[in-house]
């Protein structure tokens, strides 16, 4: 076990845990944002640089600070490490810079984007970005590509997090897509305009943090905040899929089916394309009840829930901090998603 101090809060985690996951054990507003890291996908992380933190002391043995900011999603904890995230002005400034970089080639077409309302980039920019841009040049654009009958790729919105590449690598038998080109001209592509056709390909939609990969059966049907998420399951015959999903209702209609996600937007269990695209009748499913949505999310506009704080952490905090936390609960709270 290693004990680290994250933004002044002590937490003990098993050796080999990353700083980001240690912070997630604390929960709340101090958790660094992550645009490319995805726990279920091995090898992901380190690319978007959104989660950069300052290590003020490397470990108990070697308490020197690390010379550069480190990506918290891939840096493992050392006993006695002291990490600064929201308490470091440098980190906050750099994060503002990262938002700016991610947005310079992003079309900012949120009003017509299906991801709006559940978009990691939107949340990230809202929390850390500026409302204006210093970028005056032409933005990078691509043509939309249909990769198969069910998924559309809109590369213009992509932030090259590589999550879908890892899904293709780790979940599906034949990888047919990857990153082509380099620099700001690199793009997610299917070599020779191939289609992505296998039972788990739909998961690339779920992992995409932005609206670059969208579900063609859902596109333009409804704004996500007008829909109601319900957890449901069915007995799925597909190997490796156990049919645990979230159904998104508008009135009595199931408009789309997604995998269930935790409070950090990470898929808990992968689902197959049959569940995702073909089962859109309530009669196909056994309903379990409303899916929990982060109260800060726009999707939760009509059913706020009371914040639940991590009692373990509160016990260790100075009283003034607890009062402050109770009065101004952080935007993102841990342990909300059942």
């Amino acid at each position: 076990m290693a004990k680290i101090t994250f933004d002044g809060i002590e937490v003990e985690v098993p050796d080999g845990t990353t700083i980001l996951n240690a912070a997630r054990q604390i929960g709340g507003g101090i958790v660094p944002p992550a645009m490319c890291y995805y726990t279920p996908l091995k090898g992901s992380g380190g690319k978007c640089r959104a989660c950069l933190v300052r290590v003020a002391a490397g470990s108990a043995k070697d308490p020197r600070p690390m010379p550069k900011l480190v990506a918290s999603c891939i840096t493992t904890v050392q006993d006695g490490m002291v990490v600064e995230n929201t308490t470091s002005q440098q980190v906050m400034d750099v994060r503002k810079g990262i938002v700016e970089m991610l947005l310079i080639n992003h079309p900012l077409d949120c009003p017509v984007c299906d991801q709006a309302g559940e978009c990691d980039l939107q949340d990230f920019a809202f929390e850390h970005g500026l409302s204006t841009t210093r970028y005056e040049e032409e933005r990078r654009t691509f043509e939309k590509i249909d990769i198969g009958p069910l998924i559309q790729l809109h590369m213009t919105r992509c932030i090259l997090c590589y999550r879908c590449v890892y899904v293709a690598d780790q979940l599906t038998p034949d990888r047919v897509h990857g990153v082509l080109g380099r620099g700001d001209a690199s793009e997610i592509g299917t070599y020779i305009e191939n289609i992505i056709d296998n039972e788990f390909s739909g998961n690339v939609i779920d992992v995409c943090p932005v609206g670059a990969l969208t579900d063609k059966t859902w596109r333009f049907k409804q704004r996500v905040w007008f829909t109601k998420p319900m957890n449901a399951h069915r007995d799925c015959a597909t190997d490796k899929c156990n049919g645990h999903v979230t159904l998104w209702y508008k009135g009595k209609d199931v408009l789309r089916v997604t995998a269930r996600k935790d409070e950090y937007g990470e898929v808990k269990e992968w689902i197959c394309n049959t569940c995702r695209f073909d089962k859109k009748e309530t009669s196909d499913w056994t309903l379990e009840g409303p899916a929990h949505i982060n109260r800060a999310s726009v999707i939760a506009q009509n059913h706020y829930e009371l914040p639940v704080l991590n009692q373990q952490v509160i016990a260790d905090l100075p009283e003034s901090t607890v009062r402050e936390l109770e009065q101004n609960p952080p935007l993102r709270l841990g342990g909300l998603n059942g």
Partner: protein
Amino acid sequence: MGRKLLTEHINVEGINTFEVYRKHGGYRSVEKALKTMTPDEVTEEVKKSGLRGRGGAGFPAGMKWGFLAKPEGVPRYLVCNADESEPGTFKDRQLMSKLPHLLIEGMITGSYALGARTSYIYIRGELLYVLRILEKAIAEAYAAGFLGENILGSGYSLDLHVHPGAGAYICGEETALLESLEGKRGNPRNKPPFPAVQGLYARPTVVNNVETIAAVPIIVNEGGDEYAKIGVGKSTGTKLISACGHVNKPGIYEIELGVPVEEFIYSDEYCGGIWKGRDLKAVVAGGSSVPILPKELILKTAAGEPRLMTYESLSDGGFITGTMLGSGGFIAMDETTCIVKNTWNYSRFYHHESCGQCSPCREGTGWLEKVLHRLEHGHGSMHDIDLIVSVAKQIEGNTICPLGEAAAWPVAAAVRHFRHEFEWHVKHPKEATMPGAAYRGAAVLA
């Protein structure tokens, strides 16, 4: 006249063949190491020599070798980084094409020291003709029993392969090089783990520059202490400097570290002064990614000391008034050079070569290039000058690999030392965009 260690026999007829190379004392270090030394003794000599990585970062080579993890029953690798593609640097190409056996000899001795049974030379794809030369030389070495099974009856075996890259600057970054060597897309890896622990095929690996490896036979032959006597302080030995730009005699010079910069530029032994009798304006001392310095600061440090061609002296004053020795790509610019255009040109290169993996570099390099393009073509504003400094700062230190810094440093340094030129471009767009235009001092501003 400085001593020539690497290039002593470079002009001997037929030195690229095994026979002639052997006649001139070639492969002595292999015999000496394999027959009279243990691998650790070889590493010890390299440590004693104080040899520093010649690829750019200047990390002590012996220390790097010492970091190599040596778990039982796991193969280890020595990989030679011959992906020389830094603008202004062309020393390895010459070394490999003229003296292929020197590199091979260094690879054998180095691999023996590290306990590697298979080693690779990862060569830049554009240098196909050098690849052929190396392959021919390797075949000769195999035939002579210096490669393959049981070298010189010592029981030590080594296979050496040459692998061409596919034209990406980023593959000169050691972890991107390893990815590419493994047959993957050349994206730099997240560190740690460092290659010394998990490198090629997730095995302990040392990646060294061509010139570093080529220095190993000399160190083994002469002894580390003897090698350390050359040079100044922690900058020991000789270094190949590829001089280019507006000098009378561009070319590759082997210098003893410690030669004053002024002597290097103006003496007839080296560059022979600035061409056409013009005045020197600025120097990029170690390949395009190191900060540019104006004449006053490259010849003398901020404290007024003469600047020497050493790792320490060139970086004296940090990045405020100093630069780096880098890979030894010495680019001199005369008074007619437009610094804005030059900076834009560098930015164009880094924009083109960014791998696109991490966001600050992917987006930032393109942004820098576009704003500099605007400035160079007379459409910029004063605000743009601050903007590029700010963008460069946002890239620097926040990327996975050093390409981000390589793209940011030249821009930041150009504005730091030549801000007046950028302002001249903004104020006088007409003059600044005329062919061959460059800021020549206050007179033009009037």
